[in-house]
């Protein structure tokens, strides 16, 4: 007569699992040197495409095997956490700050500010994101900084739209008028009143955005536009592994798994936060 029992505990598992993987990434990024068994750049053409340790023909010490240049995949994956986190954090922060600021200004002040910023958002939303990032990286030259700029330039509209909607809603609330009556400056109102209410939405979006940033880097690597030095990123390792997927599947599969788990961790962490912030979920 009554539906089966709800799994209340599930909600928090998602949050902690996500957080655990992200913490692991930070740990790997910081201690990359100590953790990785080999130098990520050391090549040995004699040790090309060695299989992972548990398969026949493996070489001891190369736990996840080697790529077409004989470089240790495990070390490269560990080092690749650095560009991944840098891109994820810096690009998302830039997009978040720029977008939220504009969103706040547009939502709170309305009038001309809103109209101009909304047009700006429309123009940016009208661009095909992948094509725009390819053009941007072609202009700025393939480097981590240009990947970051490309992502920030494209994704700030996400934050702007959310913050603007929230700010407009808050502005109509009574407590904002009462704050104005009490003589608070508009800046103080925005910071003390509007922002705290907008914060949950921003934090969730920020976490999802970090996942998106990592994916965009992988897309740019797929069209050979990501960073140009031979420092590894998961995207470039996947692109390199694509051609020899039948001979050496591990060159593609392990970085792909890391990329997948990272993006999943970011999205589940975001979802978990969203549920934590609005407990109205039945």
């Amino acid at each position, binding site marked *: *007569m*009554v*539906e089966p*029992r*709800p799994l*209340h505990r599930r909600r928090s598992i998602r949050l902690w699992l996500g957080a655990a993987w992200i913490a692991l990434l930070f740990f790997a990024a910081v201690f990359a040197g100590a953790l990785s068994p080999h130098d990520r750049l050391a090549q040995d053409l004699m040790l090309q495409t060695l299989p992972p340790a548990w398969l026949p023909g493996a070489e001891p010490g190369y736990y996840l095997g080697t790529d077409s240049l004989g470089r240790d995949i495990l070390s490269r994956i560990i080092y690749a956490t650095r560009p991944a986190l840098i891109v994820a954090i810096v690009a998302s922060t830039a997009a978040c700050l720029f977008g939220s600021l504009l969103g706040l200004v547009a939502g709170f002040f309305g009038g001309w500010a809103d109209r101009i910023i909304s047009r700006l958002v429309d123009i940016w939303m009208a661009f095909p994101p992948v094509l725009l990032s390819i053009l941007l990286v072609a202009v700025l030259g393939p480097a981590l900084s240009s990947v970051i700029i490309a992502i920030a330039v494209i994704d700030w509209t996400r934050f702007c739209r959310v913050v603007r909607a929230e700010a407009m809603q808050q502005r109509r609330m009574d407590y904002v008028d009462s704050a104005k009556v009490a003589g608070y400056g508009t800046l103080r109102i925005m910071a003390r009143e509007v922002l705290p209410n907008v914060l949950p939405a921003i934090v969730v979006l920020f976490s999802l955005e970090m996942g998106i940033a990592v994916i965009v880097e992988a897309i740019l690597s797929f069209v050979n536009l990501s960073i140009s030095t031979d420092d590894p990123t998961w995207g470039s390792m996947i692109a390199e592994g694509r051609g020899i997927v039948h001979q050496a599947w591990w060159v593609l599969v392990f970085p792909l798994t890391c990329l997948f788990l990272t993006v999943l961790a970011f999205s589940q962490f975001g979802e978990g936060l969203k549920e934590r912030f609005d407990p109205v979920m039945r």
Partner: protein
Amino acid sequence: MSAPFLKIDRLSVRLRRGGEGRLLRQASIAVAPGEVHGLVGESGAGKSMIGRAIFGILPRAVEVIEGAVRLGGTDLFTLSDRERRRLVGVNAALIPQDPLTALNPSKRIEAQMTDRLTRILGLSAAEAKARALGLLEEVQIREPARVFRSYPHELSGGMRQRVLIASAFAAEPRLIVADEPTTALDVTVQKQILKLIAEMQRRHGTALLFVTHNLGVVAKICQRVSVLYAGKIVEQTDVATLFNAPAHAYTRALMAATPRYDRPEESLAPVRPEVIEALSQEIAQTDNIWAEARLAAAGRRA
């Protein structure tokens, strides 16, 4: 009076994962065809829990530990989902509290009135439409055809409540549960709606369980009444005895709390603490005898 159509027998309900608090404690109510039975209690006493139990749609977070709900002699808990839905669909109807949210905003009134008639009761589209229009006239709606074709947002609160009442009676159920049907309406409309429900009930002879926290309403239209406190029916008598010689201290306190024209100064007296104390003794005493009952209930299909 003939055999009761609705018979709730010692029904106990508890939060599935919460503390030891009971939502309902062996509540027993019987409503015979044609009878109007009032169910009175402060909000949060468990009134709407009983209402939902009758329709077998208790929220997921709640479990039944004991008791039975019999409609026309059949206990709902023994039925499969499908059988229960059929039984309830044919025999019972609900008049909701807030007309503003009780109608589907994206469907015309026509669809919302006739869906049960055609799908559950098996009427043809024409028969369903005719009956619905008839009912709309019966609830004194001036242009039934226009209202029939319009969307909920085009009608006022009072009009929507009339539509809901018409919709409930349209199924010619043997039991109607009115869950504080006038609370959400403004005062002037309340009187009309109350009079309307009472007349419709007499004319159709349906058993009516009237849930309210307003004793004035009970006095006007109910024959028998149950007083509910924290899930336990502390008093169940006919209306006359209730107002003249209330047996339970809590009922008397409730009476005192009701504002009266003739003695304004006495009204709004809060329930005296010793009455509350006595009440909690009484309730605690009934809780522990269920320790063994819980084991027995373990095997029951909730």
